[in-house]
């Protein structure tokens, strides 16, 4: 990540990630949530560690972006990170935005590396939640681009 990217990532974390994590922490009654991406590490902990946390809906997805549950219970991944498959410039697919329903395999965008397009596809059926990257932004391999909210049935 470039310095500029780091600064952007921190700003983005403060503006989007921290409120989102806090909201989730409270909603689910977890003890703490930690997200790491590159040098960036965001950890949000509840004031009351003894808070009940039966349903943990986040788990470690992949090394680049991990969220560690601090309580037991069945791990059901809810927010699925979509990461960059290549080093290059990322471009969103037309019409992609927060709230858009996608099915597994749907095109999220592509990373152009030396003129070759590396497609980025939705890993699961769900709803596009956060657009973390900006269109046209240079991205490194494994960089978080988008989060897809797992469609919860019933």
């Amino acid at each position, binding site marked *: 990540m470039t310095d500029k990217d780091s600064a952007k990532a921190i700003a983005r974390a403060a503006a989007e990630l921290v409120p989102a994590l806090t909201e989730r922490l409270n909603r689910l009654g977890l003890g703490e949530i930690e997200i790491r991406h590159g040098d960036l590490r965001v950890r949000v902990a509840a004031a009351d560690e003894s808070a009940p946390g039966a349903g943990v809906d986040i788990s470690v997805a992949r090394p680049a972006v991990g969220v560690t549950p601090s309580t037991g219970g069945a791990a059901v991944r809810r927010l699925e990170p979509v990461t960059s498959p290549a080093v290059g410039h990322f471009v969103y697919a037309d019409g992609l935005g927060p709230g858009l329903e996608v099915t597994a395999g749907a095109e999220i965008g592509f990373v152009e*590396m030396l003129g070759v397009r590396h497609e980025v596809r939705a890993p699961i059926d769900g709803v596009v939640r956060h657009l973390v990257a900006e269109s046209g932004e*240079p991205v490194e391999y494994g960089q978080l681009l988008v989060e897809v909210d797992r469609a919860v049935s019933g």
Partner: protein
Amino acid sequence: MFAKILIGNRGEIAVRILRTCRELGIPAVVAFSEPDRESMAVRMADEAICIGPAEARRSYLNQPALISAAMITGCDAIHPGYGFLSEDASFAEACAVHDLTFIGPRAAVIERFASKYAVRRMLAANGLPTVPGSRGIVADLSDALAQAEEAGYPVLLKPSAGGGGRGMRLVRSPREMETSLPLARSEARAAFGDDSMYFESWIEENRHVEVQVLIDSLGNGIHLGERDCSVQRRHQKIIEEGPSPAMTEPARERLRDLAIRAAAAAGYENAGTLEFLLDREGNFYFIEINCRIQVEHPVTEMLTGVDLIAEQIRIAAGEELRLTQEQVALRGHAFEFRITAEDPHDNFSPQTGVITELQLPAGPNVRVDTHLYVGYEIPPFYDSLLAKLIVWGETRTEALAQARGALDECRVEGVKTNLPFHRGIIDNAAFVNAEVSTNLLDRVGPAAFVGEPA
């Protein structure tokens, strides 16, 4: 000079290159694979960029990823380090196509020096003696058998595209040729994508001596003395030293002089190493030229005070050599010990783990090039080199005393290392008396040099 350099390597050499970039005031970007995210080079870097997953083919050997990484971070040059893409002409060419300078010889030069067999002929024509062997690439098994019969066994089968000892096979009889040739071919194909083989007559008792050269793009060349890399296990160097303790001063002078003249005449460019076999009678034979910075380059740096990485960068930037041959002063004696995550009590099997304790030796004549730190987890995907311990003394005896002290001081916990092997060998009479030939460890077995496990 370059605006910014991408370091396309890992481990100690990435740290080493980063240091020189800082000294030269050139910003640098460390390219890394996912498991190297917590590596020392990435931690030290002002800027780093992930280029791919653990698998080298998709990261450190991934040409488009490295070039793209250099472009999006605003670099105008790539230092490939050693191994990986450091001697890959297609990569040097791809860099040039994207207006990036490959820090090493230009693609055309690498291309010309890529075929070991062609280089042997080219440098022989420029006055270097070569080991007798096959007439060119062996066509097939029957050709190999006929030619080996003529040259006499044993012979050493070598991949023309090769390096680093891979695909090399000692063949002692026609029967061995029948089994070894296909095996060596498939090894070479897997490692280099090219299975052409040639052979050299095997010089049973030999030493490995190599001359370091620097040649700028204007054709000015200097040598920086030689290194003796005779302590090897299965063709992998373990200890290097300079000057060669097995040569007289006039012989050394002659070797250095012939090497730099031949390399310059053949049109070589940038830092390079000409490797020679030295037989018991003191005859030397040219084997190959390495178009990269070598693992053991610090031996030369200790003797000359010249930063070889800085010179590589300057030459690649088109600068004229700053030193003339007369200005290169070789002083004293230096050793380098390759400390690896290998268990000498278990057939040098590679080890992984977390470094729990680290005590590195220091002192006025001691240098350690390493990427280790306490808490560092050694990933299982790459080579086992952990650190290089380099010591210097006015004489070989003094340097050996330095080595003993430094090795005793050195402690690496959390993973088994070959330190006991190093400690054993420096007190061995054959090593102390400079009588180690390249086949000694494989003939006697390294166990003879390692004490019982504590």
